[in-house]
């Protein structure tokens, strides 16, 4: 008997919080990470009687940017709907979302040669956050409304992935893309990027999609997402091999046990009783927005553009991951053209000093680079700085004394960080001499 071949079918739902200053429908601050509970709240995001939503235009613009980056068709006229369900983190009894007309639909994200299809990109609002705590010996569920009403974008893919690896490559590319265009911080630790994977398995010979799906929820890293998907595929295949039906389910992932576990059985279909939000007039995207966002280039295409400009490919590939804001690169380009800088040399300089310029303005990089063209050769300054560095880095000194030559390069790096470009062989020798002297003096003491 030949063994049946199975094929995983994976679809992704990604929620990202936009990095706007204000919330989606009120003027409260949207930032909620580590904020004191219930500080950024008002009648609107608390859902108090008589309060009304007033849409944040910048959030809509950023959602349009996301839809464009994912090559979506755009609904220039869209609307908000109320999605009703009861939960303590939902003060109005409904969530505002775009159900009938998502801002973007039928898009794709191209990674190398594969175009991963995107079903929809729509704007919605985040819910409040529940904290289950013991207060004075009592088990309580507390509600923090700081997150209530933070602009959220939901990106839904078609079930187009057939492995965890593929899914994670997609997610990482998406994260980079959104960070690069400064629409979302996509920080999973802070909850500004949340992942859900819908996993099912079918016989490879079946053309039809399976009639069930298992939703993997509340997974907060790429690594765990991959592990959870892999586990789930194996689990489902095992069940299918035993001819068992797989129930429609929501499952969580336990990273310690490295396995998924059931969270809740999905009711047939929840009736959300969608209602056109009467408090928000139809959204008509301004023509100027549609024009401006027409030719947004996804990051992977930008990479090629930058290579064409004369950046060394190997260098720029690494740098793009590190300096992940498009506007930073644009400013850098301005300076490069203005000051006629060699991109190749600058690229290597930046590569060496990556961490030093992280989150620093591009202009500072250029200034230092130009200054660094002059090698610092003031022997008094060099001697002083070397002494300081030796004093500040006892571990490296110890390492060197224990025979680790690598420590010299670490100390050279610290020196460069302090005073800029130096003649490396010469300075290495100086450090070595200084340390050897130290060794002999300490020896003589014992």
């Amino acid at each position, binding site marked *: 008997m030949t063994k049946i071949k199975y094929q995983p079918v994976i679809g992704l739902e990604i929620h990202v919080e936009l990095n706007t200053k204000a919330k989606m429908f009120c003027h409260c601050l949207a930032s909620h990470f580590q904020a004191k509970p219930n500080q950024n709240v*008002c009648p609107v995001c608390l859902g108090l*009687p*008589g309060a009304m939503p007033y849409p944040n235009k910048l959030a809509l613009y950023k959602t349009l940017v996301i839809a464009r980056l994912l090559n979506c068709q755009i609904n220039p006229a869209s609307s908000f709907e109320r999605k009703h369900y009861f939960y303590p983190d939902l003060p109005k*009894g409904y969530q505002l979302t775009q159900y009938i007309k998502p801002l973007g639909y039928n898009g794709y994200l191209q990674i190398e040669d594969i175009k991963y299809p995107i079903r929809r990109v729509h704007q919605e609002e985040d819910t409040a956050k529940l904290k289950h705590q013991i207060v004075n010996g009592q088990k309580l569920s507390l509600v923090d409304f700081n997150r209530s009403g933070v602009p959220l974008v939901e990106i839904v893919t078609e079930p187009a992935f057939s492995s965890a690896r593929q899914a994670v490559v997609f997610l990482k590319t998406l994260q980079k893309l959104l960070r690069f265009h400064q629409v979302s911080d996509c920080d999973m630790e802070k909850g500004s990027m949340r992942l859900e994977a819908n996993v099912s398995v079918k016989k490879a010979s079946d053309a039809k999609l399976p009639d069930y799906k298992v939703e993997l929820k509340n997974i907060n890293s790429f690594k765990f997402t991959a592990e959870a998907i892999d586990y789930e595929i194996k689990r489902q295949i095992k069940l299918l091999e035993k001819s068992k039906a797989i129930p429609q389910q929501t499952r969580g992932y336990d990273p310690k046990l490295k396995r998924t576990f059931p969270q809740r059985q999905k009711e047939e279909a929840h009736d959300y009783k969608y209602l056109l939000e009467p408090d928000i*007039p139809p959204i008509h995207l301004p023509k100027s927005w549609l024009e401006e966002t027409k030719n947004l280039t996804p990051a992977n295409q930008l990479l090629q553009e930058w290579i064409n400009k004369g950046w060394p490919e190997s260098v720029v590939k690494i740098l793009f991951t590190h300096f992940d804001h498009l506007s930073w690169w644009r400013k850098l380009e301005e300076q490069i053209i203005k000051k006629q800088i060699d991109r190749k040399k600058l690229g290597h300089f930046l590569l060496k000093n990556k961490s030093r310029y992280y989150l620093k303005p591009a202009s500072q990089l250029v200034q230092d680079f130009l200054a660094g063209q002059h090698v610092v050769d003031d022997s008094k300054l060099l001697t002083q700085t070397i002494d300081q560095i030796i004093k500040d880095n006892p571990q490296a000194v110890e390492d060197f004394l224990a025979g680790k030559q690598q420590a010299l390069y670490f100390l050279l790096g610290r020196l460069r960080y302090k005073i800029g470009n130096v003649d490396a062989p010469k300075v290495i020798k100086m450090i070595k001499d200084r340390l050897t002297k130290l060794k002999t003096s300490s020896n003589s003491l014992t």
Partner: protein
Amino acid sequence: MKIKDIRHLTQSFANWQKAVKSNQFDLSEFSRSLVDYMHQAQTKTQSYITILPPAEINKKLQAAVKSNKPLLGWPFSMKDIFITKGIKTTASSKILQDFVPNYDSTIHQRLSRLGGTLTAKTNSDAWGFGASTENSDFYSSKNPYDTNKVPGGSSGGSAASVAMGLSAFDIAEDTGGSIRQPAAFCGLIGFKPTYGSISRYGAIAFSSSLDTVGLIGRDIKDIVWLFNQVKGPDQKDATVYPDQKPTKIYPASRLKAKKIGYIPGFLDENVQPDIISHFHKVKDFYTNNFNIEFVEINMPHFDYGLAVYYILAPAEASSNLARYDGLRYGRSRDQFGHEAIRRILLGNFALASGYYDAYYLKALKVRRLIYQDFIQAFKKVDALLLPATPTTAFDLGEKSQDPLQMYLNDIFTIPPSLAGVPGISFPTGFDSQGLPVSLQLVGPHFSEGLLAGLILAWQQSIKPYLNYPNLP
């Protein structure tokens, strides 16, 4: 102070202004008397949920007069669905009976800044669900012209207070007739402007696509003046029209040879004969004085207004009431009254999957057709003259056991609401029982100036603003 003197001051802003400017009366004495009369009235008409203390009223009055604010402290009341900072706001519901908001509705904020003095929050049907105030979770209000009759609803307490001369005007809200019908039952002007004129922020929502903030008052000139002060864009309500010009009342010269439409089918046996005879009286007045031509207008979908309304309004209401889930505001859901439960169930039914297309979606489509009926009509005529209500004020308890009969009372006020066009009910006299009779003028979006011009001309001929009931 005597009630006669209070009434003189609340009757028109001109009277108030003159008296204030020439120090003809003592403000603190006025505040005390006004509150006394309100409490006296309350025992008979139960028009109020909250009557503010005289000291507080006096303080606001003095401040407004001292700083010469536009309204000079002119005392007004508000339907208790408007959020008032620091003042209990209940929507006449038990669910919110202890709710003291720490924020303000835009309309209250604007009136306060203009120097108006809030004196009371008035009783209505809970959440605005009704046409008689009998659905208030606390008590029914009575018509001051006859306390066996309803004052209308949902803004019944509002109309009664203005009718007695205890509020200069009242800020109320009209979803399907909640301003026009009680104003009609109490012999006042019920001003429902174009949907989206005045900010709804802080008006506890009933049916958001229909809810329209408006006024109940005596004198159309004052109403339009106030309307101009409070309307216009608000960064808290996205449905307010951004570019609104000041409303100017059409002078008599501009009324000449206008065309007014009427719907012939409605002058039949379902409408009380007094109202039909008043219709002809007013029609003749306009024809004789302004050479206005009356034209028969066919509105094929007008008849469906009520059916559409009782799908859409409960659908939105069920959603708007979802927030009173028992977790907040200190009252559990078993405190909802019968009518609220009825509408929550109706609304959920209409929105449920499987019924959505047949009810909610269908109703939206018919609403569009009704809207188009109005647009088409206003290509032929400048305004429509309609009854405001099929009857004058009915008996307390007469319809409260039969919701459908109650709903029918809004048959003339609902279609303009569905189209979002302005409708103003105005008094035309009294019926054989001595109860106020009213008609309604309806015009295209933003035609309040024309409608007000027509009403001003009529008002000058019969001076209905001089009429008062015997109460308090």
